[in-house]
């Protein structure tokens, strides 16, 4: 496994108007790694993902993907380079059916293992409902569809923004059991989670954000509950 980072975020600041959401945040992801970003509401986790995906542009700092600078590139460009975001709240296209949502994900035609058939194999519940309008699905099924849609773009880095939000624990567990299969295909993952237990179980490496700053990071196994609580709440 190559040792240089697939994604290198260096000291970025992000603003919503006058409000600063990220202060000199740095994270890095190696190929094949699963990185979890945890933190309380408003800590800046979604902002970080949006900045990586190109929905927001950092005011300072650098983002290097595959060694090339990408800060400031628009979102559709980032997808072409292999960064796909599963947005917070799923945000499937309501006018489209499940299958059409998946097809939109694949319309860039990036080469890779993920096809419609593969996605249906990963999430059989979607295959049964392929021609239903997206809003007709349950929360968990919508989440699967949102992940499938992002996979269809054959990304190298998949960003998952709070995929457990609003879902029952058993559904969340179901989805998380599929993550290793996704990683096995050669994807790297950043998962943003409020569900710390799931995040720690799934990840190799953890970053904890607190009020826009990296309060703690380290290998998932090496962190105790106490150190995480301290970093999470800033005690």
């Amino acid at each position, binding site marked *: 496994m190559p040792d240089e980072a697939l994604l290198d975020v260096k000291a970025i600041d992000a603003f919503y108007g006058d409000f600063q959401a990220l202060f000199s945040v740095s994270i890095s992801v190696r190929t094949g790694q699963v990185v979890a970003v945890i933190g309380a509401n408003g800590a800046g986790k979604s902002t970080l993902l949006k900045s990586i995906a190109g929905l927001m542009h950092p005011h300072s700092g650098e983002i290097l993907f595959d060694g090339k600078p990408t800060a400031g590139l628009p979102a559709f460009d980032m997808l072409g380079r292999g960064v796909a*975001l599963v947005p917070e709240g799923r945000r499937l*296209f309501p*006018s489209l059916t499940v299958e059409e949502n998946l*097809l939109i994900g694949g*319309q*860039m035609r990036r080469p890779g293992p993920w096809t419609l058939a593969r996605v249906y194999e990963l999430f059989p519940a979607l295959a049964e409902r392929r021609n239903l309008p997206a809003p007709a699905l349950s929360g968990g099924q919508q989440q699967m569809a949102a992940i499938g849609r992002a996979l269809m773009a054959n990304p190298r880095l998949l960003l998952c923004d709070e995929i457990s939000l609003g879902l029952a624990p058993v559904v969340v567990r179901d989805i998380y059991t599929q993550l290793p299969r996704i990683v096995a295909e050669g994807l790297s993952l950043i998962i943003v989670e409020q569900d710390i237990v799931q995040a720690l179980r799934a990840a190799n490496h953890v970053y904890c954000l607190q009020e826009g700053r990296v309060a703690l990071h380290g290998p998932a196994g090496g962190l105790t509950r106490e150190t995480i609580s301290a970093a999470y709440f800033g005690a």
Partner: protein
Amino acid sequence: MQWFNVILQGVLIGGLYAMFAAGLSLIFGVMRLVNIAHGDLIVLAAYISLMVVQSLDVDPLTSLVFVVPAMAAIGYLLQRGLLNRTLGDDLLPPLLVTFGLSIIIQNGLLELFTADSRRLQAGPIEVETFQLAPGVWIGALPLIQFAVAVAVIAGLQGLFYRTALGRAFRATSDDQPVAQLMGLDTRHVFAMAMALSLAVIAIAGVFLAVRTNFDPAIGPARLIFGFEAVIIGGLGSMWGTLAGGIILGVAQAVGAQVDPGWQLLAGHLVFLAILAVRPQGLFPKVSG
């Protein structure tokens, strides 16, 4: 029988109105933009056809081969170069910019072509009629125009619901940022929608030019007819727009039969009546 003929004429011109409307509602559906210059662009297409017909000595229907791509290109550039800048939460910029565009087109055409009334000759087909039933005659040209209008609307439906471009339109209209996340360059998607709208306008413009006299000032009335057809039929439904166009055409035809001065008024009053009684239109599409 006379009334049947009148209504038939109304139905046939309704197809033309539906084409005026289709371009308008396409743009509104994809990017929530109402193009005040829509009617003037129809007239522009008519004049482009005039130029092609005069310089290449072809008949108007053949001129479509040039006019449609030309208008589509104009639409793409217009959206990409100008109108994309007006999109956003504020309602005023797109409205005022397209209003300014309307004034520019009208007066530009006036400068280039003067206010003289023009008409394109389609040749012998203009006078062809055939008999549907005893006492019922139908003109070949109006019938062809109606058939083309239906085909255009069917084509747009097919495009929207069965092609990748249509998916891109619907996704962008649903959620612009997420569409971008999925790799859609929304500036390009919007420009393609405008190009498509202007392609439809091109066909409508050429048909208009063959059917009636035109001059630079008749644009706004076409915008209003298209708009009324959309509202009568119901937002979001292409086939509803066809129905709206037909109802408008019939209302105008009946009004004209009662008194020539009442033609336009009858159409407007039917529109206002529908607005009063069933503001969502007759066949609105349930969104989702």
